[in-house]
């Protein structure tokens, strides 16, 4: 397999994770840690295949998945916002329910357990993009993908715009940063939260739909931790859409390498581990560095006091005189 094929595969593999990660960022921004992404994504996979099977069109299947997963997210939002349930517990409950439901409903819906293949006539249509098609190397990477791939590749920039240039983005950031202040300036934080959590569901459902419809099949547990990979990308990016995009490219490349190397008997577990290790490192490093630098600054100050640094002595004397005047 050559490099361009590998990159083409990367583009195909990164899109589901990217959609899910971009959805998760909306939750992340309002300080609800999006641990339910795995469940949303799996529900999206299952519902997209079901919808395609029922309505006979992959696009209807996709819409079906997005809407129903959005409703699932609405239930989650209701529990978290109105009933003040711990979002972590609620998210894992949803993951468990979805995992069980998809297993359970396989037999009643499709009449087979484990794995279901869709008819190849129902495959997602692939597009030949006019200009890209004619450029030699770029064509191998970016041509001949389904519609949602192109949408997803533009989406980080759209969401960046939404965050930093629209009213809703401002309200969202304000709600996440300091809720009382947001309420004080008249933002309906409840509405902002509902919209954010439901957008998470919608985008994660679309990501799941993309995953199952590109492969044209559903199998039990097909997300296989991809929701948490998306979470890792969110943690890496600290909630910035474009940085999350970069993270997803990295993880997509890892995924493509895993697919290639596993057939050759090379141990790929460490490559699959990479997103999780990076996520922990990126979550832990900034506070550690901050703490260490604070500590060194503090100890430097103490050292200067101990060595009777004239500057420090002068400022101390100044403060002393000000205080005694009062």
């Amino acid at each position: 397999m050559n490099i361009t094929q590998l990159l083409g595969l990367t583009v195909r593999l990164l899109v589901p994770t990217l959609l899910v990660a971009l959805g998760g960022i909306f939750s992340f921004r309002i300080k609800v840690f999006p641990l339910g992404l795995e469940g949303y994504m799996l529900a999206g996979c299952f519902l997209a295949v079901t919808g395609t099977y029922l309505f006979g069109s992959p696009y209807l299947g996709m819409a079906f998945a997005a809407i129903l997963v959005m409703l699932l997210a609405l239930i989650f939002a209701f529990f978290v916002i109105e009933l003040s349930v711990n979002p972590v517990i609620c998210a894992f409950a949803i993951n468990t329910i979805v995992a069980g439901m998809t297993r359970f409903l396989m037999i009643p819906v499709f009449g087979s357990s484990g794995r279901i293949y869709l008819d190849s006539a129902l495959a997602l249509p692939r597009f030949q993009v006019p200009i890209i098609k004619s450029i030699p190397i770029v064509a191998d990477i970016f041509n001949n993908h389904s519609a949602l791939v192109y949408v997803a590749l533009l989406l980080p920039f759209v969401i960046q715009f939404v965050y930093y240039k629209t009213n809703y983005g401002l309200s969202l950031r304000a709600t996440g940063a300091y809720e009382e202040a947001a309420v004080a300036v008249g933002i309906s934080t409840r509405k902002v939260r509902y919209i954010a959590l439901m957008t998470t569901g919608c985008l994660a459902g679309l990501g799941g739909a993309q995953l199952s419809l590109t492969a044209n099949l559903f199998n039990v547990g097909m997300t296989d931790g991809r929701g948490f990979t998306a979470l890792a990308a969110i943690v890496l990016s600290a909630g910035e859409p474009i940085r999350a995009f970069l993270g997803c490219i990295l993880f997509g490349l890892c995924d493509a390498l895993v697919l290639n190397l596993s057939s050759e008997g090379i141990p790929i577990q460490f490559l699959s581990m990479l997103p999780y290790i990076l996520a922990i490192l990126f979550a832990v490093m900034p506070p550690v560095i901050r703490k260490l630098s604070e500590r060194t600054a503090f100890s430097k100050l103490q050292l200067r006091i101990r060595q009777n640094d004239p500057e420090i002595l002068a400022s101390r004397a100044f403060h002393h005189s000000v205080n005694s005047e009062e």
Partner: protein
Amino acid sequence: MKQKLTDTLRGLWKELIRKDKIAHRISPFVALLLSLVAAGLVVTATGANALEAYTALFKGALGSVSSIKQTIRYTIPIFLLGLSFSVCSRGGFFAIGQEGQMYAAALLLVCVQCYLPHLPQPLMMILMVICGIVAAVVCALIPAITKHYFGVNEAMVFVMLNYISLLLVEYLFLHSPLRNPDSASYPKSIAVAPTISTVALYIGVIAILILFILLIKKSIPGYRLRMVGQNTAYAKASGLPVTQTILFSAVLGGGLAGLASISEVLGVYHVVYNNFASALGFKGVTVALLGMHNPLGMLFASLLLGALQGGSVMLSTTTDVSPEIVSVVEGFIMFFSSVNLAVMIGRITDSRKRRKYHKEERAAQ
């Protein structure tokens, strides 16, 4: 004498039906009922008979001596994981990484078997128990430390550690001396020799339960734990060693998860598969929620989950409902028991009071 007795009884009854407490007390039962109804609706929607399925589940779980044994076998690890989650949440952090801790413990057990195979059995057993506990404790301490010192979200670190340890186990059971030579493609470890008998397992779990109750209700560390968990700022102001207490709860939680792993590997499987703990991961959380962090409550909750697991075998043989419904029921239990009925009722009455107040205000104007 008689008067005194009736007075005590009346006092107990009044305590039991105190208005502010009753919602709190019945909320696990409501959660259970709701989840059974919800899962029943799912079963009915697929055209099967829900009542028949539940009857089969019940029979499969408690119908005969062997099935009761099976139920208890499933109950033991779930109960230990419930205790583990509960003790950590008392210390104020959210330990959802029991799965990873169990893998780490199992990995070290296999290492002992592999590299020190000629030790006498009792010595080996002791070494294994110590190693298993230490591995799980280390896995539990990482998120506790990063949370406490650097303010990192512990749920995220736990989830990532779960995946890391799962993949590590998969790698080592495919490409290292720990690999079982009989299984070529499926990750599986070499056989682990020491055996804990079923009776010893039962006695051990009861001993752990009693120790746990004593620790939480009667000892100084237990009291500190409760104080830190309920109000960290106050505990700090009263001069309690907050950091030590939180780390202590992590150590305890990790140790319990390690024990669960040991009971599974040495008591049941005698070999480690790469995903032997994956079904157990979040059952501990469910148990702690349904049992409302009360040791005896958690015992009943884990018996319930164990019964669901044990009964699922019967479900697949006698009805055409797939046994996967059990995990749906579990999910619903976790979902509904996360809602505290007392909080919910408090909210509703609050908003009603507010509305009434506003109405009166308007009428007065």
